[in-house]
């Protein structure tokens, strides 16, 4: 159905995470295997038997948000705006240059501004149903996550969309940017995901018995679940021609992506459907499974996810599994930001030649036996990496990135 398309590259990264804000701090954190786990301060945790999360405690919205009042944005949108500013600067672009081309802004999220909705609910409970904080009430709609970026950067020739496809949303948003650029619809895209810690989501996972009491240990025999996290990851993407013409530093090429839906269960992952998604991504990217040098797994660290996900990987890759890591061991499950931040990590890995570790690891579970690069990053000559994102609603999205100078030219689109 499609003809030759533009190649798409990542030239700027903006990240806000519990192990570092800004691409250099994040990269250093990934290499060092830093952990963002700590007791929650975002809300009162009295009554929970345990309450660690990967919270960001040093974020200063006013350092990044200057063209609008930070109060007009919830915490998730603030993260998204900050990460976008960083991505533009990291790409060596001025905001004026971004304003000068047709662009797409797509931001994935799980919870939008649910932290604000928690606050409004708390007010109703303590002060009465009619009590409302109007400033907060105006900023709760998820469209603000992307609209806030557009406003901050003063973009006009732009398509602005929020993609609330839960915990795989970052990959959906990046994949959308890939299609928009490769088809020639837009020249640049700021894509990724953002979420803020909130009581609602911590409580839900706690009730499901999927919050780890101490730390997140993906693929470990003793893994006990996730730690919730927060942050934002934004990728600045552009066509290869555009990047080459302006002499941009290229992190990675986006080779393609695949989507699938389990259509079976609201929260339990489905092995066959994930395998189908991986295969679709490989086909879209024009690669074979054997080309993949490492997998950045969804890797939440729950019993069910890790077994099912590795089973799906095995279904596609056979017995020769590439190294499979989870950066959630370091930054927690950042929900809609998760696969965007993992994409950023993959891009850094490709540029700098290393594989980020899976920290907190003791003994690999034979039921999900992978080389998860335990505890310490390793140097590696990488050409192609795969980034998995899985979500509630059976929403799977797998992204494939390649080192741009050696990336195979896609033969199918």
């Amino acid at each position: 159905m499609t003809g030759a398309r533009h190649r798409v590259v990542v030239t700027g990264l903006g990240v806000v995470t519990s192990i570092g804000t800004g691409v250099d701090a994040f990269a250093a954190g990934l290499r060092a295997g830093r952990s963002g786990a700590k007791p929650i301060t975002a809300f009162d945790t009295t009554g929970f038997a345990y309450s660690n999360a990967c919270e960001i405690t040093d974020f200063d919205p006013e350092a990044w948000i200057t063209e609008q009042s930070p109060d007009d944005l919830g915490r998730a949108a603030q993260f998204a705006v900050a990460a976008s500013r960083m991505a533009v600067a990291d790409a060596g672009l001025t905001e004026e240059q971004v304003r000068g081309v047709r662009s797409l802004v797509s931001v994935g999220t799980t919870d939008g501004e649910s932290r604000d909705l928690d606050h409004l609910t708390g007010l109703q409970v303590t002060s009465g149903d009619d009590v409302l904080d109007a400033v907060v009430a105006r900023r709760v709609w998820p469209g603000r996550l992307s609209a806030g970026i557009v406003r901050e950067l003063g973009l006009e020739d732009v398509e602005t969309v929020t993609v609330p496809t839960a915990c795989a949303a970052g990959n959906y948003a990046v994949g959308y940017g890939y299609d928009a650029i490769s088809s020639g619809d837009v020249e640049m895209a700021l894509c990724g995901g953002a979420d803020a810690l909130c009581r609602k989501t911590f409580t839900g996972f706690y009730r499901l018995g999927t919050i780890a009491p101490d730390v997140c240990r993906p693929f470990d025999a003793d893994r006990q679940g996730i730690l919730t996290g927060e942050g934002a990851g934004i990728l600045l993407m552009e066509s290869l021609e555009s990047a080459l013409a302006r002499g941009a530093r290229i992190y990675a090429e986006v080779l393609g992506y695949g989507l699938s839906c389990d259509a079976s269960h609201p929260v339990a992952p489905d092995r066959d459907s994930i395998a189908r998604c991986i295969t679709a991504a490989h086909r879209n990217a024009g690669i074979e499974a054997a080309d993949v040098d490492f997998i950045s797994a969804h890797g939440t660290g729950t019993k069910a996810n890790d077994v099912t996900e590795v089973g799906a990987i095995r279904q596609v890759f056979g017995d020769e599994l590439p190294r499979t890591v989870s950066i959630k061991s370091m930054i927690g499950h950042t929900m809609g930001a998760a696969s965007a931040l993992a994409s950023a990590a993959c891009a850094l890995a490709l540029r700098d030649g290393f594989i980020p570790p899976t920290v907190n690891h003791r003994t690999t579970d034979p039921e999900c036996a992978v080389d998860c690069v335990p505890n310490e990053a390793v140097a590696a000559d990488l050409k192609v990496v795969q980034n998995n994102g899985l979500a509630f609603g059976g929403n799977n999205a797998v992204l494939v990135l390649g080192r741009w100078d050696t990336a195979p030219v896609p033969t199918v689109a």
Partner: protein
Amino acid sequence: MTTQIPALDETEQGQIKDIVCDILELELDEVTDTSLFKEEHDADSLRTIEILASLERTFGITLKQSELSRMVNLAGVYAVVAEAKAQ
């Protein structure tokens, strides 16, 4: 230690059966004390956690997640709830 735990009365057992049938979308006569939630009534892990959560709210008890492995049928649930109430 199980010998000292008082059994649930009929009302309590009835309450539990109602909860289970509601969550598993079953009629009361479709489930017996020994019919298995997962194998015979299509229950998945989310449904069993729903049952656990609902029991905690209804009886004001605290159940460990590990008790899920015993809550495979009504008889198992009765035993787990009886123990929790006795604590």
